[in-house]
């Protein structure tokens, strides 16, 4: 494992956002590919953070800082990855459903998914079914993730499912839902593919969806 990659992993673990651009560029100059840097530098760093978080040794703000560090490096790597025809772990569309303005959980999930190597398109809050449909058509994601905090707005999840079915897009994606009042029973009820109780679980579920394809 080259020294440059170890330095990049450590910068991710320590959340050193300021250092990562120069470390990334140095690594590229030394002949490492963007894919190498992603798989052998950034991801191992996030894996360590993930393990520490599970143990209760690292906390959400620290995980987010590490994720942002990784994103800062990915900003440089993405065009190179695209050039080389390399793909991210998967593409995910995420949003808080129609009528609901709560987004802190959704943003947390989005950042965790990015930290797990996914490309995440965040549609924001109060996202009507049509907007989800348009985004699926345009972005062709592997996964659609919906969030709601209110028992009333949960129903928008069902409406979005219907809209996707009617647009003939349901089979193209895996759908996961989450949010405080959401349950695994509700997910089954509306025909979603999965439910996650928190951001780490969402990350695991996303990986499972990709691997099962």
């Amino acid at each position: 494992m080259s020294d440059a990659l170890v330095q990049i992993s450590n910068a991710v673990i320590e959340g050193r956002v300021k250092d990562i651009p120069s470390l990334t560029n140095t690594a590229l100059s030394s002949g490492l590919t963007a894919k190498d840097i992603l798989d052998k530098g950034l991801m191992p760093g996030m894996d360590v953070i993930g393990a520490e978080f599970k143990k209760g040794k690292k906390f959400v703000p620290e995980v987010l800082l590490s994720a942002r560090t990784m994103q800062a490096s990915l900003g440089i790597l993405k065009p190179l990855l695209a050039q080389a025809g390399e793909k991210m772990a998967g593409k995910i569309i995420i949003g808080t459903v129609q009528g609901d303005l709560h987004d802190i959980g959704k943003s947390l999930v989005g950042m965790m998914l990015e930290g797990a190597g996914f490309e995440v398109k965040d549609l924001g809050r109060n996202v009507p079914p049509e907007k989800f449909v348009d985004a699926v058509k345009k972005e062709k994601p592997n996964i659609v993730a919906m969030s709601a905090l209110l028992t009333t707005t949960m129903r928008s999840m069902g409406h979005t499912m219907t809209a996707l079915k009617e647009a003939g897009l349901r089979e193209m994606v895996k759908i996961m839902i989450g949010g405080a009042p959401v349950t695994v029973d509700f997910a089954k009820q509306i025909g979603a593919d999965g439910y996650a109780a928190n951001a780490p679980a969402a990350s695991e579920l996303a990986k499972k969806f990709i691997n099962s394809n």
Partner: protein
Amino acid sequence: MRVNYQTNVTVQFQVLTDDQRQEIFRAALHVLEHTGIEVHNDEALAVLKAQGAWVDGTRARIPSYLVRRALASAPSSFTVYSREGNPDKNITIGPNCINYGPGPTCPNFRDPRTGERRKYMRRDARDVARVCDLLPNIDFVESLGTVSDVTIDLADVYEFAEMIANTGKPIVAWSYTIDTCRDIHQIAAAVAGGEAALRERPNYIFYAEPLSPLTSSQEAMDKLLYCSKHRIPIVYTPCPMCGGTAPTTSAGILVTAMCECLHGLVIAQAISPGTPFVMGGVVSIMDMLSAAFAYGAPELSLQSAALTEMARYVGLPMWSTAGVTDSKLVDEQAGIEGAVQILFAGLSGANLVHDVGMIESAMTGDLQMMTMSNEIIGYVKRILRGIEVTPETLATEVISEVGPGGNFLATEHTLAHFKDQFWFPTLMDRSCWAEWEAAGSLSMGDRVQVQINDVLDTHEPVPLGPEAQKQIDEILAKAEARYRT
């Protein structure tokens, strides 16, 4: 004669100095003026603009003189009335008067008979109201849940209908939308004997929330506007968490919480000067491992107490929080978190202390938690009463009578005072081992359950008049018809 002498009538408690309160208030005024609030409601924005706020799209920046004007007209006290006409069940919202009650909208309920955790049903609203009606330290009523076995969009109206029929204590109501807010108001008016009667003697308070940080949604504003126009007492308070939807530092959450309340106050007072308005909130932290709102955190008690002082500083009544645990059970954690919260809410002198009776971070309503908390409130109230120092209480005469080695048991002094001086537990057990064993070796949880069973089996609330019930049924039927179209 004795001069220059001060006494404490009750226990004194203070988190902040007056200088600190002033700084926090000035910071809130600064944020309202410079950062502003996102208001997703055209009518509300128009009101703010007409008042003199700077409105740019949905962003409203509110100059401090508007806040001061609103505070000047807002009442610092008001009364909410029992529908039974029983003044003992009225609630006085006034400086330093404490009132405790449950909270709303848990999706789940722990069945009081079977202990099963299940979805909250219509009949639970009935049971919770009945238990609240009888428990002496519960002053106002909320349902502890969201009804799941009725038309889903009308869960709020059915819940209110059940509560008002099953308790004579004032209710704090909430609604999904402006339509159901209206339905609930009509039910309350029917029970009060008309809109005019209701306006004179309101029997409920309405609850709505801004969104943290610094936002008001379309629906929340609709409800605030409606309540202001009808002079329904309103609680317009946020549920922010430090590190997530509010700054990580406690002084910071006090600033944002104040802004989130005060912009609502400005609008309410602009529409209807003098309309009762309660500030406050559920101010806690984000648990940095689970990212969840930590109800049982000590920070909640500390920050709620400080926010209560801010409310008193600006002259508004305070909506505070206690009796709600993160535990999934009514266990040791629930006892600790509930007791500390109840004590500090009481010490702070908050006017409406809600959420008593919630477990699992407010995801499950639990009558055991509420009933146990009722006992804790009684316990705490005794402490809050403080110590009276008078010649009679100094007792030097009876001390002399009894003398060294004597006892005070049968003295006139003891007989005259013990019933008033001592708190008499209903649920806490002080018996000796043999007695306790003979009585069935009951735990606190067991004894709580016995009390719940007793209330559920025997307590009949004062019923509504048949005319009122008929009107309520009509309102529900109209709401159903409206939903179907």
